[in-house]
């Protein structure tokens, strides 16, 4: 989305159009001629996979709305109507419900990839923050979407999460009443959640456009963390190289998606949500969808209501400051031996928090959750700032081409690369 396009319209009609709106030139420079680092691995296909999932969720969602009724007395029945009577309704609903989970699997891989290779570092801070905003919008969308079937988990999830705001002093109660549109979660709540659930994906699409724009301004990071220096040697054109690789990655991802949709469609959901909402009975275990579990564990780890809510929101907010918390001059974990280990510990802590979020808040689980919550924040606030100061990075290759040669061409080329790369990449 930057630079001058090399696109030359051929037909007179296209020339006429292009001189008035250079749309195809923009597409050409963004998705055809765009220089892509030649050493990207398959973790970089998740950007494309996420774009696909966003479109897939919007399309299946629009179609489901044609049959869904956002009313407290009819929502559950209308979902069952979709599952039983609508042509391919079961397929569309399972695609949408499991699609949300697939979306989060992809986004977590995408985020951890960015953390591992230092993709948030200068000049990609705005790109990263836009990503955090997308993540927040996704969480809001997914939460409100889960309320719509109006099952037991929908209802009690909505109750518990909206009650988070009651932790705020003085304004808490009025805010919760305002969110509910009443004195409890009821039809007005369902209606507004439906409205917002329909709106937010389009806001996500807007921020995604900014995210892609920012990406095309600063260029893609890559496993070495070294910028493109000579496009002829370091880069390949986006089409066909990245497009075909993304397509292959996407189809492999779709195999997993299809496995869930067709063979274990309710695995990622809750059995309780097949019972219609009942304000008089709370399910034995209130747990959010799996993708919220680490944050839910952080919320429950803190015994104080307000502090728990603050800790949970901080765990996401801290991501915004990541570009400045990580003080290392080297981007990629490939050349950061210590960071690499701490990274995997952090991943394990996040998975552990996820597991604890699903367990009942009792006994040892609470203690474990406290330990891991503390570590989560220590990772960002203590380890990352200090690591950059004390860690001795391995030599970084002089260019992407050198790194590729070192990998494919054996020792001689590698020696050249090492020699040229005594200083960390800095522009």
């Amino acid at each position: 989305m930057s630079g001058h396009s090399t696109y030359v319209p051929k037909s007179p009609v296209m020339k006429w159009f292009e001189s008035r709106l250079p749309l195809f030139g923009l597409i050409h420079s963004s998705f055809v001629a765009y220089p892509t680092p030649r050493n990207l691995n398959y973790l970089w296909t998740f950007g494309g996979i996420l774009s696909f999932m966003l479109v897939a969720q919007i399309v299946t969602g629009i179609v489901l709305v044609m049959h869904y009724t956002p009313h407290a007395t009819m929502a559950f029945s209308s979902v069952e109507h979709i599952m039983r009577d609508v042509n391919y309704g079961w397929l569309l609903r399972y695609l949408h419900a499991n699609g949300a989970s697939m979306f989060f699997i992809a986004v977590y891989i995408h985020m951890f990839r960015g953390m591992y290779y230092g993709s948030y570092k200068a000049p990609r801070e705005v790109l990263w923050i836009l990503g955090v905003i997308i993540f927040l919008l996704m969480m809001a969308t997914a939460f409100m979407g889960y309320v719509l079937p109006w099952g037991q988990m929908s209802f009690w999830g909505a109750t518990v999460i909206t009650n988070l705001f009651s932790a705020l002093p003085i304004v808490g109660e009025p805010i919760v009443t305002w969110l509910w549109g009443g004195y409890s979660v009821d039809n007005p709540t369902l209606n507004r959640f439906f409205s917002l659930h329909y709106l937010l994906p389009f806001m996500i699409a807007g921020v995604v456009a900014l995210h892609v724009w920012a990406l095309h301004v600063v260029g893609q990071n890559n496993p070495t963390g070294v910028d493109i220096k000579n496009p002829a040697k370091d880069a390949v054109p986006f089409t066909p190289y990245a497009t075909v690789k993304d397509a292959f990655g996407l189809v492999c991802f779709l195999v997993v998606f299809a496995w869930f949709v067709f063979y274990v469609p309710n695995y990622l959901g809750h059995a309780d949500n097949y019972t219609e909402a009942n304000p008089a009975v709370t399910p034995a275990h209130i747990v959010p969808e799996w993708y919220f579990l680490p944050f839910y564990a952080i919320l429950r780890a803190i015994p104080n209501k307000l502090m728990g809510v603050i800790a949970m929101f901080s765990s996401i907010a801290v991501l915004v400051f990541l570009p400045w918390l990580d003080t290392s001059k080297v981007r990629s974990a490939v050349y950061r031996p210590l960071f690499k280990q701490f990274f995997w510990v952090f991943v394990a802590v996040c998975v552990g928090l996820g597991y604890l979020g699903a367990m009942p808040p009792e006994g040892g689980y609470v203690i474990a959750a406290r330990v891991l919550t503390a570590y989560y924040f220590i990772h960002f606030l203590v380890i990352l700032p200090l690591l950059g100061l004390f860690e001795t990075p391995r030599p970084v290759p002089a260019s992407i081409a050198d790194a590729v040669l070192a990998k494919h061409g054996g020792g001689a080329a590698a020696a050249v690369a090492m020699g040229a790369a005594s200083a960390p990449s800095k522009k």
Partner: protein
Amino acid sequence: MKKTTLLIAGALAATLAAFAPAHASGTEKPPRVSWSFAGPFGTFDRAQLQRGFKVYREVCSSCHAMSRVAFRNLAEPGGPGFSEAQIKALAAEYKIKDGPNDQGEMFERPGRPADRFPAPFPNENAARAANGGAYPPDFSVLAKARTYERGFPWFLFDIVTQYQEQGPDYIHALLTGYADPPQGFPLQPGQSYNKYMAGNAIAMPKPLSDGQVEYPKGPDGKPAAPETVDQYAKDVTAFMMWAAEPHLEARKAMGFKVILFLIVFAGLLYFTKKKIWARVHDEAHA
């Protein structure tokens, strides 16, 4: 490097396991039943669904509604496989409330295939009043609304083994899990002891007993399936699973085709990608 990571992960898992409190509860895990509808090629056993419907109709339906299932569903593909004529006759045996008529009054008429199964009670309050305060849940999606805790690491294996029958296993176990309470087990009046019910006290009296429902006879004059509690429980549970997921067969059949297609497509894309990238790699070696 990998070793360190593995060690850390292992230590973390061990810590988590050590923290896990022992679940002090007398509830047993339901035994696994071999269901015809399990697995990637699972299909319902038509005869079993028909028997299950008979059990539901003659036993369960006096308290449990199934109000999202219509008579027509019984003749739809992937279901019990009744004929159109059978369900027409069946529906006509029921009286369905309809109206209001031109005089503004509700009236009863014989059921039609498009009608849903009539509920035994007009509303939840009436159902509770007739059942000592307990609400007999609607059967329509119950097989998907019930489950039991699988625990680590089994819940992970379930993705690959496609074990999705926690609900049916639980229901079958519950129906066969009535027993005499242990010495001194506190039961309220009207409650029964059940090995699989959470808390072991259930408001539903033992619903099934051997020989209670007559099964269709085979050519040798013997019932097509054993007239036992275990068989009744299996049959009615299979019927409930079909009711909860009437398109299960279509879903699994389509899934096989879709995944096969995606694997072929992925293979083609892989070779296309290799061809296209070959040029870059040649250059790298040059």
